[in-house]
């Protein structure tokens, strides 16, 4: 009896191993992800294949740095009024200001603008973290909360101008992409594009309209268009991945794109 049972158990194990291996293999194929890659940065690089996209990303980085400089200056003012030593914080702010000038000086049409963007963004994150940690050492949690509240609703004309400029550039970028899509679909609706540019219709409405147009088509045509759009998106992703790999190879050990 025992022998039969052992034989059955062995048979069961032997039979189930190969089939489990097949299932495991397919799961592995689905779940491959590079843990080192910062997904936000990777996503941001996708539009940098286009010169206008690179312009947008650099403007957005400038805006983010300016926002932090303004917040940092406000925090320093508060600390000075409370007679704290702010030398280190002011040094960090000065470095952030220099960094801002570097971002402004980047040539968006140059081949290495993607690499420069990643380096500068990494540096901006680093300086921001330094500032945050330094101020954390100076003040207690309650005072920090108070300062946070004060600078939260900060209004700056400079920032508003940046927002407007970025919004306009994004609209232009979307218009170009819309023309590309119309090229794939085979029909263009110029009045629709103008309505979007003038702000009469939103991006969501525009997307909805496009989906509707494609969904009205027959199955084969719909598939053709879907494949073309997907192909374009995958191409952009591959280019972004290539840029990222180049940066990773050049800057090994620097940790670009990691940590906030």
């Amino acid at each position, binding site marked *: *009896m025992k022998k*039969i049972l052992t034989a*059955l158990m062995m*048979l*069961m194990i032997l*039979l*189930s191993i190969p*089939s*489990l291996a*097949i*299932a495991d293999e*397919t799961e592995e*194929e*689905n779940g491959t992800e590079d843990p080192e890659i910062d997904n*936000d940065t990777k996503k*941001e690089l996708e539009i940098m294949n286009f010169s206008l996209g690179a312009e*947008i*990303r650099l403007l*957005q*980085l400038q*805006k*983010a*740095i300016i926002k*932090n400089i303004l*917040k*940092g200056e406000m925090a320093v003012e508060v600390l000075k009024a409370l007679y704290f030593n702010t030398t280190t914080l002011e040094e960090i702010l000065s470095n952030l200001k220099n960094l801002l000038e570097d971002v402004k000086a980047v040539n968006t049409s140059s081949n290495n603008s993607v690499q420069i963007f990643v380096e500068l*963004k990494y540096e*901006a*994150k680093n300086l*921001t*973290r330094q*500032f*945050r940690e330094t*101020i954390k050492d100076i003040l207690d949690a309650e005072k*920090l909360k108070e*300062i*946070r509240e004060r*600078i939260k609703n900060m209004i700056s004309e400079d920032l508003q101008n940046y927002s407007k400029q970025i919004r306009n550039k*994004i*609209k232009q970028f*979307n218009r170009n992409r*819309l023309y*590309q899509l119309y090229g794939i679909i085979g029909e263009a609706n110029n009045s629709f594009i103008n309505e979007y540019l003038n702000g009469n219709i939103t*991006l969501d409405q*525009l*997307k909805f309209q*496009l*989906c509707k147009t*494609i*969904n009205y088509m027959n*199955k084969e045509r*719909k*598939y053709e*268009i*879907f494949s073309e*759009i*997907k192909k*374009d*998106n995958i191409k952009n992703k591959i280019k972004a991945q290539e840029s990222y790999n180049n940066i990773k190879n050049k800057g090994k050990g620097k940790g670009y794109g990691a940590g*906030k």
Partner: protein
Amino acid sequence: MNKKIVSIFFLLVIFVSITFVYSYYTSNNNEQQYNSPIQKIDENDISEEIDETFIDEDDEIEIGEMV
């Protein structure tokens, strides 16, 4: 004793069949995704691809908070 052996054997058969069916179904599903996407396109797929084509107007870069 014979009854016990038969029931263990049946259990074994059921277990092995379930494992095979599961692995076959999993691998078959993946093949379908690659080989016959034409049957799988729905409004959501198109909408996802269109979403990826454009940039949201409120899109921003995050470098962290100062305080």
